[in-house]
Structures are given as structure tokens and as C-alpha cells.
């Protein structure tokens, strides 16, 4: 591998890993946000007076 090969390998791995981590983080955030919204909705429905 030539010198540029090592440079692109390093840059490629770093930015690919950061991108995957960012997407993984966003996915976890959206999962928890959905669950939180669902819980809040069910709490609201339970606390509303019936009749």
C-alpha cells in the first residue's frame, strides 16, 4: 500500500465509524422518544376523568 493508501484507510475508517455511531445514537434517541410519547399518552388517558 502506498502512503496515500494509509492516509485514506485512516480517514475512511474514522469517518465511517463516527457516522455509524451518529446514526446509531439517533436511532436510539428516536426509539426512546417514541416510547416516552407512548407512555405519556397512556398516562394522560388514564388520568382523564371518565364519563
Amino acid at each position, binding site marked *: 500500500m502506498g502512503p496515500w493508501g*494509509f*492516509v485514506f484507510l*485512516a480517514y475512511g*475508517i474514522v469517518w465511517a465509524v463516527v457516522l455509524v*455511531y451518529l446514526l446509531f445514537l439517533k436511532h436510539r434517541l428516536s426509539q426512546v422518544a417514541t416510547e416516552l410519547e407512548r407512555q405519556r399518552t397512556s398516562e394522560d388517558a388514564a388520568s382523564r376523568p371518565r364519563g
Partner: protein
Amino acid sequence: MAQIEQKGLGRRILGGLALLFVLLGLYVALVQAPPDAYQGEVQRIMYLHIPSILVAYLSFFIVFVGSCLFLWKREKRDDTLAYAAAETGVLFTGLTIVEGSIWGRPTWGVWWTWDARLTLTAILFLIFVSYLMLRSLIEDEERGALCGAVLGIIGFLDIPLIHMSVYWWRTLHQPPSILRPDKAPWENIHPSMLLALAINLVAFALLYFYLLSLRFRLGEMREELKRIKLYGGP
């Protein structure tokens, strides 16, 4: 509600700035900066390697501060911050080891050697991987936070050892060549290289704080979810 929206907007601005500086950093590191007189083009890995280890150190310093505060005040928020910083710190330490390995192959002739600085950095990585495993394995939240805080403080103590290792032992890894006590940084490196390094440091710092803010938000939301499930309200 307005405060949450403001925080969300601040996070988006931080993310945008990080992206801008990352692109600028890539341009100056790969196009504008000249090749090194001795190492040639592979020296460009330095613009990744130094910023990533510095943000990893910063991250473990945040773990250290958050852990100390948690042990002192027992506020969940400090533990959430320490946990978030440990995860992002592991990411950047892992990347530092990979970049160093790729840089080591053409310059030292090996992908890995049991040099003092490399070994201590690998130990730092393993300590904080253990921290993350510990946090996910202990079911009792309070106990997990306490054990994590103790491990976070002990783990941080490895950083001064990593820094001093190049002075205390005969190592393959060179001592600091830019931040030296006897010379100003601009006397040790060409200004265009110093500028490229500075831009990449800013880019990594912005990216780090963006990722940390997202991870911290995730921790806060999980706490809120637990509260609702336990007590049925915020």
C-alpha cells in the same frame, strides 16, 4: 417546553458548525497542508490522531468530574453526564488506537508494538470498555452508578501515566513535538501544518460536544422514561 426547543436548536447549530469544520478540516489536512519532509504524505494522519486523543482525554476528564460530583452530591444528572462521556471517550480512544496503528505501519514498520504509551492507551480503552460493560450488567441503578463512578475516577488516573510515559520509559512513540516546554508551537512546525492541526482540533471538539450532547440527551430521556414507568408522571 420552550427550554427544550431552545436546547434542540442549540444542538442543531452545534451539529451544523461541527459539519462545517469537519469539511474544512478535511480540506486543509488532505489538500492544503504540505507533506512532511521526512514522513511524506502519511504524516497527514496526524491531523486525525492528535485531535482524537485530545478529545478522548477531555471526555475522560468529564467522566472524572461527573463521577466525583456524583459521589459527593448523589445527583443523577452528574452520573448521566459521566456515563455519556465514557461512551464518547471510548469511541475516540478506539479511533486513536486504529489511526496510530495505521500510521505506525509505514513509519515504524509494525501495526502494533508493546510500547509504554501504546500499551497504556490500550489499558485506558479497556478500563472504559469495562466501565460501559459494568453499567449495562449491574441491574441496580444506584449500585451501577456508584461502581461506575469509582471506576471512572480510577480510569482517569491512567491519563497522566500515558502523558508521562514518553519521558519515563524508552519508547518508540516520540515525545510531544509541538507542545514542548522549551519552544513555542509555531517554532516546532510549519505554520500551514499548525493551522491545519488547529482547524481539525476545533472540528473534533465541536463534533465531540455534539455527540456528547446527543448521548446526554439520550440518558436524560431514559431517566424520564424510568420515572414515568415507576411513578406514573414526570
